[in-house]
């Protein structure tokens, strides 16, 4: 499976991670090579095999609906790169 340059650019947009020209070329080659090796999975007959998401059986784990203390706002904002008046500050979302 050979990835095209356009596909790598598309992935870059999907995962919101820009790339330099050099990175783009390197990832195109490396990821193509890795995917080629994954072709081996096509050998496996998985007809009627259900998928497994978690190794243990679980269903609808819900906690009791009761209030409990949470961390103070100042603790949560302490790690924020930019904050203002008790909010996280980001650049304008709409132009």
């Amino acid at each position, binding site marked *: 499976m050979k990835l095209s340059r356009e596909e790598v650019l598309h992935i870059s947009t999907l995962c919101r*991670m820009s790339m330099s020209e050099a990175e783009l070329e390197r990832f195109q080659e490396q990821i193509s090579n890795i995917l080629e090796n994954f072709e081996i999975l096509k050998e*496996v007959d998985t007809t009627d095999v259900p*998928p497994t998401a978690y190794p243990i059986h679980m269903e609808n*784990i819900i906690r009791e609906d009761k209030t409990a203390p949470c961390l103070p706002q100042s603790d949560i904002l302490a*790690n924020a*790169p930019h904050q203002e008046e008790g909010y996280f500050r980001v650049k304008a979302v709409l132009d």
Partner: protein
Amino acid sequence: MKLYDLTIHQSHELLKKGEVSSIELTKAVLERISQAEEKLHAIVTVTEELALRQAEQADERIRSGDSTPLTGIPALLKDNMCTKGIRTTCSSRMLENFVPPYNATVVEKLEDAGVVIVGKGNMDEFAMGSSNEHSAFFITHNPWDLGRVPGGSSGGPAAAVATGETIYALGSDTGGSIRQPAGFCSIVGLKPTYGRVSRYGLVAFASSLDQIGPLTKDVTDSALVMNVIAGYDPRDSTSVNYPVPDYTRALIPDLKGLKLGIPREYFVEGMQKGVEEVMRTAIAKLEELGATVDWEASLPSTKYALAAYYIIAPSEAMANLARYDGVKYGYSHDGENMWDAMEKTRQFGFGPEVKRRIILGTYALSAGYYDAYYLKAQKVRTLIMQEFQQAFEHYDALITPTSPTVPFKIGQKVDDPLQMYLSDVCTLPINIGGIPGLVVPAGFCDGLPVGMQILGKPFSEETLLRIGYAYEQATGWGQQRPRV
């Protein structure tokens, strides 16, 4: 014997009798850190002040007769476990200055037991890697040969335990990250059953595979740490409410009545001859100790595990790592607008291996490829799990090598991702299956460590510890210490 070379149980005996204080033990470990760290580079943050304060409290607790087997004993935590007020970096630029506002459950449990935290251990960035060369800060060296890797991703903690920079450590294991470095550094590493230990406060990599476990100098210590960290936690909805035994009761020095299988698929093509020889000798020893050994065990889907793993783990990782956007915490890069800032934050905040996995995971989950990659890998996961289940109907445990080779040279695989991935070929099927795996030192090949991996069905940690203990008592491989 130097104080820093003591095990947990040896330290505990001395502390209890008053022959040594926690302050003395802690100072010995801190001195060892300042002496060995120059060559080893195993620790991201040394928490000297905290350690001495905790040691003082521990000494008081011991004097009052209220101590536990872990009270006053120095520990190192892999730097992906949240420690309140102590920088938790994941060895990434992205979290270089991140100070968690809360403790991971395992940290709380260790603190309740009277732990002395000496620092946070170096790792491959976000636990992605098998050599510690993907740390954004520095490369940890193997204490048995400083030109070689300690394994990864818990390479810092493993190297530190082997060298006496800590008495024990906690690591995390997503595809072999506790066991492979334990094998490479000749110490004991246990990846518990998925759900056995709470993941609350462990920085998430691949949520259906991650598990925390002990890195220790011997099997008794592994059992002692498990006694404290295992158990249900309502804050981790994937932790399992299953009784926690006293693991030390499993430590019986014989293997009578146990049936062991040797899956032939784990003695793979490309496996180093010397590693195979060490494994054959080790397995003969297990037989001598009373176990029945069947060399005809088979797990035919093993050859598909690597591909399935490197689809599932990056897919989960790309979702988990979406949170690093430069807004709430972590590295933040300036940009023309919000999207530009976010895209640059991720470009400059993540290192090359993390980016590779984000790209791979994004691709596997993207429209048009989901069925062919992610769904297919999840179905193969089912087959691999079924084969383990069937095997454990016949065997109490399976015995395999930990890695096909001894520790490799620094720089040897770092530019070839596939070669690096292959060093996990014996450990990652275990995470796919959610089963426990214990690694114990099995000897040396040209002076470099070889680890034996013992696998069991879910929640069979006691059986694994028994086998590891009997083997350790009969051979004493783990007692050798590297000279650094």
